[in-house]
């Protein structure tokens, strides 16, 4: 988005020539990002459909398997991700309000929180490997549950794995933003990349907001 082409009137250097003016370019970029987020909604939606159908069929096994997850780590991760959403929103605010000195710290904070989230996720996955709760050859059916509990863990790993992959991509994008911010490219007239990565990051947070109760909390009342 950013090859600098000097223009006559006061458009910022990142202005793309096939647009009428900067406002049209901003509007198109934002519309494009929201349309992309629609595809992400339906991308995760496919797995949510599978989850809803299988939970209805194997209620007991899903609730039992869900209670094996560590709720403390899950809740902590949710809080971490909400905080990272805050710092991301502050980064977008800083870039729009022209507070250049604050952009990079907020971006770094978001990356840090994202990494903490991934670290906790890694910890959880390692725990599952030790308890033989990873579906596949050496999956051990937890006592008191039946075979479909493996289905729960298959969906658990697919959904949280895809979410974690989106986090990693997000952290990559944030690092790219820091490089651009260091070059001083973000001004109140042109902060589109920060805003778009912000939309992406908040979306990934929303996915986790739904994943957490569906995967971690659904069977707790049966304890």
């Amino acid at each position, binding site marked *: 988005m950013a090859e600098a082409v000097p223009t006559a009137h006061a458009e910022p250097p990142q202005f793309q020539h096939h647009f009428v003016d900067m406002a049209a370019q901003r509007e198109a970029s934002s519309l494009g990002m929201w349309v992309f987020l629609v595809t992400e909604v339906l991308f995760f939606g496919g797995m949510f459909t599978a989850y809803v159908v299988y939970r209805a069929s194997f209620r007991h096994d899903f609730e039992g398997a869900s209670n094996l997850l560590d709720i403390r780590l899950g809740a902590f991760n949710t809080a971490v991700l909400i905080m990272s959403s805050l710092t991301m929103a502050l980064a*977008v605010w800083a870039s*729009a309000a022209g507070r250049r000195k604050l952009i990079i710290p907020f971006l770094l904070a978001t990356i840090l929180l994202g990494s903490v989230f991934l670290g906790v996720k890694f910890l959880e996955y390692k725990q599952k490997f030790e308890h033989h709760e990873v579906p596949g050859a050496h999956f051990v059916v937890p006592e008191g549950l039946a075979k479909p509990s493996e289905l729960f863990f298959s969906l658990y790993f697919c959904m949280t794995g895809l979410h974690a992959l989106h986090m990693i991509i997000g952290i990559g994008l944030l690092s790219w933003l820091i490089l651009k911010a260091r070059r001083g490219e973000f001004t109140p007239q042109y902060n589109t990349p920060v805003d778009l990565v912000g939309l992406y990051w908040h979306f990934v947070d929303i996915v986790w907001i739904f994943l957490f109760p569906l995967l971690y909390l659904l069977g707790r009342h049966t304890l």
Partner: protein
Amino acid sequence: MSAPGGHGVNAHGGGHPGLKSYFGVFGALMVLTALTVWAAFQHLGVWNTPVALAIAVTKALLVALIFMHLKGSPKLTIFIVVASVLWLAFLILITVSDYATRAWLPIYAR
């Protein structure tokens, strides 16, 4: 449709919600997270799942409206977001309707 370039404009011309609302939303999200965890351990019978989903939807709306500044976005963006949720609902509800109505049929013709 686009506000003149200037202070605090974001990608699509809508004004930026102030700092106060960001921290307010952050606090609300934290409270709601604690609430949903607490609610999960209560024996609400058939209401456990609806309550958990209601809280999750509230949190999602907060993030979308304030953090993603959907409030103040052009109608088109809001229309797109509603369409995506509607299509996800089509996918889930119609698929589930198949599973829910499989056992309705008596075995033999009367």
